[in-house]
């Protein structure tokens, strides 16, 4: 039998299947040779792929962790310790999962800032942006409930504090909170349903990611210049961006593995290695780092209901960003004022992150209030106003036009 006939046989089987279910062509159109992408995407465009990769890592490690985890208050902490000590490679799976959450958020936050800087949320990509925000919300819910599962002190008190936010809702708040708890405090019904939802939500995220990619393919990828790209300036996603993403994932994994293997508890809280105790609150309650900016906004406002509204509002407001931003120029590269405004906004988020980790008193509280005020000022006032007043730099007509040569 020659190699050639073997190939034709395989080819026949392949074609037969492809005619009935064109799954390979489908993938090829999604992230393969049939998806034309702008040829000038920079390394910030790697983080979408990296985020998807981390979603897969989280799901796979999570499924195997779930096989050894027990979602009951009397056994949850012990079952996690059993995973760490007795289950084969359990320590690896748990540390990959716990730190994977952080690195998933790192990838997604960079992905979001890339979208903000290059105007990827603007027409015609508003729905793409919305789905992305839904993914962020689903991730936050998943991460929060996942953090409760080890049933340490921070798990328990984090769950108590976050679910208690719903008591801020007038009239029905207490009833809603009781419903969420399945009791009169965070207890085993709460833990068990959090486990069920923590297992469910990633699959919802997968569905949203599918829609995110679908919505991306309608207008096609944005690019660092933010201009519409002609066909001659596009290259097939595969092999150009698959290989670039492979390299990007490799670099990202180096950082991830460095933390997993040498500082697996650096991003965690020591109190979560103490079993949950409903009779004693730890001296300092802090959420995981990726929630800190929102936590700082919550604490900046000395009114329970308004604080909760501000915190949820800080994300929900992003849904209308495509209309708050009145400029029609997408890329901040050509917006001399807005560009600096965005960098300040980013520093503001960093400031809020820092404030969220401090005790809410003295300088951190004041800074947190300034930071929270700036957050909303930026989005609600400065963004529309600058859009109206700013004079943008001239846009190049195409990617190949020499206007951008000196910048490269």
């Amino acid at each position, binding site marked *: 039998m020659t190699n050639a006939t073997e190939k034709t046989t395989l080819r026949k089987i392949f074609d037969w299947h492809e005619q009935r279910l064109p799954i390979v062509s489908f993938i090829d159109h999604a992230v393969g040779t049939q998806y034309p992408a702008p040829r000038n995407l920079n390394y910030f465009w790697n983080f979408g792929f990296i985020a998807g990769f981390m979603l897969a890592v989280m799901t796979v490690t999570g499924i195997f962790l779930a096989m050894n985890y027990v979602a009951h208050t009397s056994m949850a902490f012990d079952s996690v310790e059993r995973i760490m000590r007795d289950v084969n490679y359990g320590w690896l799976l748990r*540390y990959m999962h716990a730190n994977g959450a952080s690195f998933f958020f790192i990838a997604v936050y960079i992905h979001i800032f890339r979208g903000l800087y290059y105007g990827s949320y603007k027409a015609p990509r508003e729905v793409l942006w919305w789905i992305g925000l839904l993914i962020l919300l689903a991730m936050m819910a998943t991460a929060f409930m996942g953090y409760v599962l080890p049933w340490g002190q921070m798990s328990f008190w984090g769950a108590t504090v976050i679910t208690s936010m719903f008591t801020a809702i007038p009239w029905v708040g207490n009833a809603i909170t009781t419903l969420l708890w399945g009791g009169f405090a965070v207890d085993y019904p709460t833990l068990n349903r959090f486990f069920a939802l923590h297992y469910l939500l990633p699959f919802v995220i997968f569905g949203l990611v599918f829609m995110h990619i679908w919505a991306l393919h309608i207008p096609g990828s944005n690019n660092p210049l933010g201009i519409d790209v002609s066909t001659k300036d596009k290259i097939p996603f595969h092999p150009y961006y698959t290989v670039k993403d492979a*390299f990007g994932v490799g670099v990202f994994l*180096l950082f991830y593995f*460095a933390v997993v293997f*040498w500082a697996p508890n650096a991003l965690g809280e020591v109190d979560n290695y103490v079993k949950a105790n409903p009779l004693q609150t730890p001296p300092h309650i802090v959420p995981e780092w990726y929630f800190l900016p929102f936590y700082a906004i919550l604490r900046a406002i000395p009114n329970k209901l308004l604080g909760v509204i501000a915190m949820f509002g800080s994300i929900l407001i992003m849904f209308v960003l495509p209309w708050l931003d009145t400029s029609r120029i997408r890329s901040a590269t050509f917006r001399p004022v807005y560009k600096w405004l965005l*960098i300040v906004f980013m520093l503001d988020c960093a400031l809020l992150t820092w404030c969220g980790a401090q005790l809410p008193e003295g300088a951190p509280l004041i800074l947190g209030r300034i930071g929270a005020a700036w957050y909303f000022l930026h989005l609600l006032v400065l963004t529309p106003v600058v859009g109206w007043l700013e004079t943008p730099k001239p846009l190049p007509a195409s990617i190949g036009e020499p206007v951008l040569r000196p910048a490269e």
Partner: protein
Amino acid sequence: MRKYILTAAAALALALPAASFAAEAEIHIPAEKWSFNGITGHFDKEQVQRGFQVYKEVCSACHSLEYISFRNFEALGYSEAQVKALAAEYEVEDGPDDNGDMFKRKAKPSDKLPKPYPNEKFARSANGGALPPDLSLIAKARHGGPDYLFHLLRGYDEAPADMKLADGMSYNKYFPGHQIAMAKQIEDDKVTYADGTKSDADQIARDVSAFLMWTAEPKMEVRHATGLRVIIFTLLFTVLAYFLKRRIWARIEQH
């Protein structure tokens, strides 16, 4: 240029919260040298064995190690027979037998270390209301980890003149709030080491801290070894992908 600004801002955004965690502990805990620090950090088995002796002779009177089984000590270099003999020194409750009674038997390697107190209430009443915490995870459950444990054990001192200690409390430089219910335990020659190591208080505190790091993170050595291999492999993949990327992109970047 703007790339560098963005990168710097991103780095700052990530570094700030990290810095804040470090700043959280209000009492400065000096860093000690440990064999398990560093990329290839490993446990000094003899030191951990000595630390176990300290735990057995001093700490175990009040503190449990609820996640440690006798079989775990094989990882410290004890033979299977030694572990069996060690377990046989202890009695654990088992049962019920055919008559429905609980009974005492010699411990087996698969048994957990017996706890000093039957329950939390008993432990509190035996210690003036204070609960001696379980020590299995203590090195991961306190800021500073083994450094903190070492300095805590050596940090007993006379209380400053302006500080009034509550009844039964001791002054400790490193304990948050400086009032600790545990009295000073570690002194020179508190234990006599089987291997002849000089047993001054520093050595004892250091050994038991190393032991508690081992009880908290028994898989650390395999984690470091695995990590090294994983990182080298990932680096290889990344370098290959980089050159492949350059080669493939060369086709369009020439235009």
